[in-house]
């Protein structure tokens, strides 16, 4: 398999031109708390993500990666600046967003199937049809997704009957069932072992290639970012800014073997060097 070198302008078409914009942050800052106890989490960040892109956010811990995610989901409002998601200001929260966290947060009193159908119970246009279709069309939809992530036949189980990796697969299903145009993933595989993680990368890649949502993935794992993303943004230490924004052009579907080839390793090392710099900048600053 031939791989294209990673650089600013190679590989997959640079989408900033033609495709409509899914997320736009303009000079967005977020400060938590007030007065003396104010903690700046994000400073004047501008970021534009086009529809259908798979963007990974990497950076030192506590740099505001998750804050960007929470801005896009509407869970957090910008202190200054503007956040536009799907053409509307986020306060309106009209965009269909799918979300998955590091913790699978399955509701323990529901079967996996019903957990996955939960967004259909909340989000229109499914909401009004939920009572009528939950035993037929919606259940089939949930089971089709379960099959796609390798959990066929587990719909009737309860969350505590499943392993961590299985729960995280179910979590992906729940994030996707309402066909969101935007998928927000906050270290979804952070708590899993290496092998399960690599398996889930392929599953997530498969899901992305079939459903084509815009994805914003926060991760600490640079191999994960390189494997999954079509674009990687590197953030500085707190309060976060975007230091580097580059496209990843490796052909899809990508395989785990590819992550050990020279081009991929070079990308990893470049990202790693930037994050090490960002970290040491903070340590000098505080010393």
């Amino acid at each position: 398999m031939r791989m294209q070198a990673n650089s600013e302008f190679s590989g997959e078409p640079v989408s900033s031109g033609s495709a409509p914009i899914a997320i736009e942050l303009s000079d967005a800052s977020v400060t938590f708390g007030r007065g003396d106890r104010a903690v700046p989490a994000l400073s004047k960040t501008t970021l534009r993500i086009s529809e259908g892109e798979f963007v990974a956010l990497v950076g030192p811990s506590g740099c505001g990666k998750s804050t960007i995610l929470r801005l896009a989901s509407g869970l957090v409002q910008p202190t200054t600046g503007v956040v536009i998601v799907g053409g509307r200001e986020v306060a309106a929260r009209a965009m269909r967003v799918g979300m998955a966290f590091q913790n699978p947060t399955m509701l323990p009193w529901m079967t996996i199937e019903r957990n996955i159908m939960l967004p259909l119970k909340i989000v229109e246009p499914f909401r009004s049809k939920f009572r009528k279709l939950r035993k037929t069309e919606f259940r089939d939809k949930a089971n089709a997704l379960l099959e796609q992530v390798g959990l066929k036949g587990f719909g009737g189980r309860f969350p505590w009957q499943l392993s961590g990796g299985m729960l995280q697969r179910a979590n992906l299903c729940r994030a996707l069932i309402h066909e969101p145009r935007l998928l927000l993933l906050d270290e979804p595989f952070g708590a899993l072992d290496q092998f399960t993680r690599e398996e889930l990368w392929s599953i997530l890649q498969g899901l992305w290639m079939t459903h084509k949502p815009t994805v914003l993935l926060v991760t600490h794992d640079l191999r994960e970012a390189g494997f999954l993303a079509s674009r990687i943004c590197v953030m500085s230490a707190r309060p976060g800014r975007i230091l580097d924004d580059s496209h990843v052009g490796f052909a899809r579907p990508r395989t785990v073997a590819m992550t050990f080839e020279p081009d991929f390793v070079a990308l990893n090392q470049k990202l790693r060097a930037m994050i090490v710099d960002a970290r040491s900048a903070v340590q000098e600053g505080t010393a």
Partner: protein
Amino acid sequence: MSALDIRQKAWSAALIVLFFVAWELFCLMTGMSDLVLPRPSQVLVTLVERFPVLWPHIIQTLATTMFGFVLGVGLGVVLGAVIGVSKTAYDTAYPLLIGFSSIPKVAVVPIFVLWFGSGTVPAVLTALSICFFPIVVNIATGLATTEPELEDVLKALGASKFDILWNVGLPRTMPFFFASLKVAISYAFVGAVLSETVASNRGIGNVMMTASSNFNVPLVFAGLFVLAGLGVALYVVFSLIEGQVTGWATRKNDVIAT
């Protein structure tokens, strides 16, 4: 049911039988007067003989208790939900609630009688006021301790506060709720009987009061047996419902490893 469960239940039954046998033997050997402590067999005979007379009183007590209990649960759930959804409301209202719950309920019966006369109304109100507190506390605590991650999942979908309460808050609170129901139903009984004893001419509490002033001690004990029986029966009913509704909270041992 496993062999262990059956053995456990057999031991429980054996203990109950042993208790009554020991009581019977104690009375027979010491020649205890039945004016002080009647034998269980005497109590049982009285209970059977007087059952037609007792029956309307049992119904009265049961109805009063259930009515007070249902009102108490309704009030408790609403109040608990209001307090539980907001941290501020929780912290603000808690001292007042503690204050109310600390008042001995015997002390409020005369007040209810003063307001509403003797009879059914003060009994219902006493049952209500004594049983609603554990429900408020449990509902409020259950809601207040809901994991923020669970709520975030729904918030990100644009769910309303009510959606979150209905789909996450309340189901998560069910184990707390049922635990409090089992306590509350016993409390409601205590409240109803208490009020009947002080100010009513119907109900088991009144029967026991009248019987004791007539030195009909076996009948007093028959009343106690009835109360204990009803208490256990209602407890069992709520335990069964609890098992059906909140089975997820008590995990079985069939975890599947992968």
